[in-house]
């Protein structure tokens, strides 16, 4: 069970988490305290929009415009994804 949708929440990376591209593996990675995450391509698009000011609503709107997809569908997809990232400690909500 996820908490109810909070479109005003501002996702941030967890303390000590670094999101960067790794040229050896040709992949985006999240490095953290004795942890390493390999986000899938959907998560990568969301993570690229985390900048400390973008809200969940802003991230959803950006993706909806870019992929020409319905805003509701995008929002419904990224909220549980962000919850999963938060549970891992990679992201704070």
């Amino acid at each position, binding site marked *: 069970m996820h908490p109810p949708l909070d479109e005003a929440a501002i996702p941030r990376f*967890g*303390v*000590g988490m*670094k999101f*960067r591209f*790794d040229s*050896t*593996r040709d992949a985006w*990675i999240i*490095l*953290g*305290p*004795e942890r*390493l995450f390999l986000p899938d391509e959907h998560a990568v698009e969301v993570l690229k929009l985390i900048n400390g000011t973008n809200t969940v609503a802003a991230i959803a709107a950006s993706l909806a415009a870019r992929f020409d997809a319905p805003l509701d569908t995008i929002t419904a997809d990224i909220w549980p994804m962000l919850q999963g990232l*938060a*549970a891992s*400690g990679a992201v704070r909500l």
Partner: protein
Amino acid sequence: MTAPAPLGLIAELTHRCPLQCPYCSNPLALDTVANELPTEAWLRVLDEAAAIGVLQMHFTGGEPMARRDLPTLIRRAADHQMYTNLITSGVTLTDQAMRGLMDAGIDHIQLSFQDIDPASNDRIGAHPNAFTKKHAAAARIREAGLPLTLNFVIHRANCARVPEMIAFAEAEGAQRLEIAHVQYYGWGLRNRAALLPTRAQLDTSTEVVEAARLRLRNKMVIDYVVPDYHASRPKACMGGWAQRFINISPAGKALPCHAAETLPGFNFPSVTTHSLAQIWESEAFTRYRGTDWMPEPCRSCDRREIDWGGCRCQAFALTGDAGVTDPACELSVDHGLMAAAVVESAEEAPAFIYRRFGALQEV
């Protein structure tokens, strides 16, 4: 068999340490300061590590802060965008040392405690006032804005206090807490009769940790490591032999794990004569990599790519053969060795044999 690039490099910078914990993961035969790699050699190792794709640098020891060039090494790793992790006892983490680490670009510090009871903490590490110094170190790490991991190694002398350890980590604002039962190699194996918990002690600590994980979800990550002796399946030691990590000893020997130096019949390459790329594909690193080396019951087991046959060092330490199934597995013909040791755990605990240079002569 070749493997993807290593994810992490564990740099055991020194075996010198102000603490003498009787379960230390260092080998019984400690490297002396005269044999330690010089700064230039470590800098070259860091350059090579970045070049072959290492993502995380773990600076450990002994006490890595005993090396005065630690900030220089951290800075080089940070310059290469590798994630820098310091594993420390914290007893020498002064304000000045903390500033040096921050200026160098440290990403994360794992701070060890030996117990939550100060007197017991200081007794296990054999270091007066260690608890007070560690507590001050935790505050410095937090005030610097770094993520904080607290590490408690637990055993029969302190595992009753896991609830207090968790409460302490919460109060200190730790992002991550490691509650790790002693692993029985090297010094830990030597002190097994003094350290191995009973089944009831293990079960109690496990229940406490599981309840805390639920309660602290999204607030603090708790990593929990159980002792193999009460297990029915082995752990995937180091994520499989030479699949994720390279461990470099203070003298520069490259090992698939910190305990591998105990294995006979190996010619572990040195970073003074081999590049990390050569080391990663060397005979020592490929011998037990993957599944080709496996005997039965591992070879046909559906968990062979989950636990990778368990730990080679434990197989050797208990059976004398590094190439057999880890006795931690209930399918191993040697699993009874584990049960025999568990019987000991109900008996009176002998005194600790402290980890120190020259300690073996005293025994």
